[in-house]
């Protein structure tokens, strides 16, 4: 089956949207796929919303900008409001249900309600809700091989901060276990 994941991650600045995207783009490359990562940029990022597009495909990536994601990850209500309808029919929508109280509006997509921020708080890893969601996403799309995860994490976490490696791994495991 051909792989063509068009992943759109959106939330507030500071929620680790770009880092989550960075993990996904690296893991896609390490799994042997063509990949791209494209952030939102400019003044809109100053304290406001933040998003990024990640393509993972077995074909060369034509456009790095994703307009109709196959996978949407919404970490706040404005992002869900804004991007829910752009998701392709049959796509998957991952919602941080700790922060988004409303129910998903689409029934032609697969909705995943993950209380990521609440889980992160319980596990004393408040800043890692993003990676809990990533854990769930990689499990759903099958990029969850333990060796791949470890190799990817080595690439995305700075070697100077080994404690971050363990925390991020733990968060991924939480997400994968859901």
């Amino acid at each position, binding site marked *: 089956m051909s792989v063509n994941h068009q992943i759109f991650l959106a939330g507030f600045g500071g929620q680790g949207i770009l880092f989550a995207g960075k993990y996904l*783009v690296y893991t896609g490359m390490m799994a042997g796929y063509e*990949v*791209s*990562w*494209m952030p939102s940029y*400019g003044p809109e990022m100053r304290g406001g919303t933040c998003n990024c597009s990640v393509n993972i495909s077995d074909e060369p990536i034509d*456009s790095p*900008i994703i307009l109709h994601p196959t996978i949407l990850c919404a970490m706040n209500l404005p992002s869900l409001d804004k991007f829910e309808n752009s998701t392709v029919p049959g796509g998957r929508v991952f919602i941080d249900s700790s922060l988004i109280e409303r129910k998903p509006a689409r029934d032609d997509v697969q909705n995943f309600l993950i209380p990521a921020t609440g889980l992160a708080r319980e596990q004393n890893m408040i800043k890692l809700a993003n990676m809990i969601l990533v854990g769930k996403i990689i499990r759903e799309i099958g990029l969850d091989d333990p060796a791949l995860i470890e190799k990817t994490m080595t690439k995305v976490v700075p070697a100077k901060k080994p404690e971050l490696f363990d925390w991020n791994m733990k968060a991924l495991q939480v997400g994968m276990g859901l």
Partner: protein
Amino acid sequence: MSEKVIMKGNEALAEAAIRAGCKCFFGYPITPQTEVAAYMAKRMPKVGGVYLQAESEIAAINMIYGAAASGARCMTSSSSPGISLKAEGISYICGADLPAVIVNMTRGGPGLGGIQPAQSDYYQATRGLGHGDARLLVFAPASIQEMCDLMTTAFDLADKYRMPAMILGDGAIGQMMEPVILPEPATRTIDKPWAATGTELKRAHNIVNSLYLQPDQLEDNVRARFERYVQIEATEPRCEEYLADDADILITAYGISSRIVKSAIKKARAEGIKAGLLRPITLWPFPKAVLKKHAAHAKAFLDVELNMGQMIDDVRMAIEYARPVEFAGRTGGIIITPDEILAKLREMEAK
């Protein structure tokens, strides 16, 4: 062979420049290319190079003029409004026959415009930036890998022809991350006997200059430069041909928009529309011969750009107005979608 790494376009560009032998970088912050300067600030001191944040774009390009005049491989980087400020210095660099690399990560204009990706500086880049009869080599990469590979080419050709070379990117190419294999560091050095590096009392003094008060001398100088331009137009044009040989409708597009065109072409082909792409990699020299060759079989051309239609002039001239040339584009920082291009292809196919 270097390892495949994932890098942001602006950072990969900076690293590729260092590997191509760039010894001096002078710049000034502007979105969406500031990461180039930030990367250079971090890396240049470690490789024995020079990084300096100038007080303005004007100062930065004149620092480039000085570094180039004294023999250093050097580069500056900016985005559209900053490039306008550099126009003065670029004209002097042309007039004094100096090699240098200038990067424009284009954003929407005119004026302060916006900060999102655009291709609205095509005229500025290809019609000779700044005053006077002059040209720049203009490279339009469509991926981070190609941008890195073209960096070495840009420096080498700038040295070979003693003229500035521009990497014309856009906000998307600068901001996105893609896997890239970085080029191996360049090892060869280029002899620059004309450079102002000090006479060591062993030769007559070198003068780096663009002033010729006698009109006949100035004309001789400009004509000599244009002889090089003729040679460049004959030997240096580059163009990617994608599904072009059997195409009824040939799309012309460069840089980021060419990637979106490819998506549209795949969809069009699935519907039985025989569309293809001609992607100029060098915008000057423009790959006229390739376009002309394909005009023999194509029924029509469609030019796609992130502006109101600028390269379309070159397309029409290259095919000598032999086929209709239509246009599809978005501007202001909006990136055209594959569906918009597909709709235009369907409309043209129905004609």
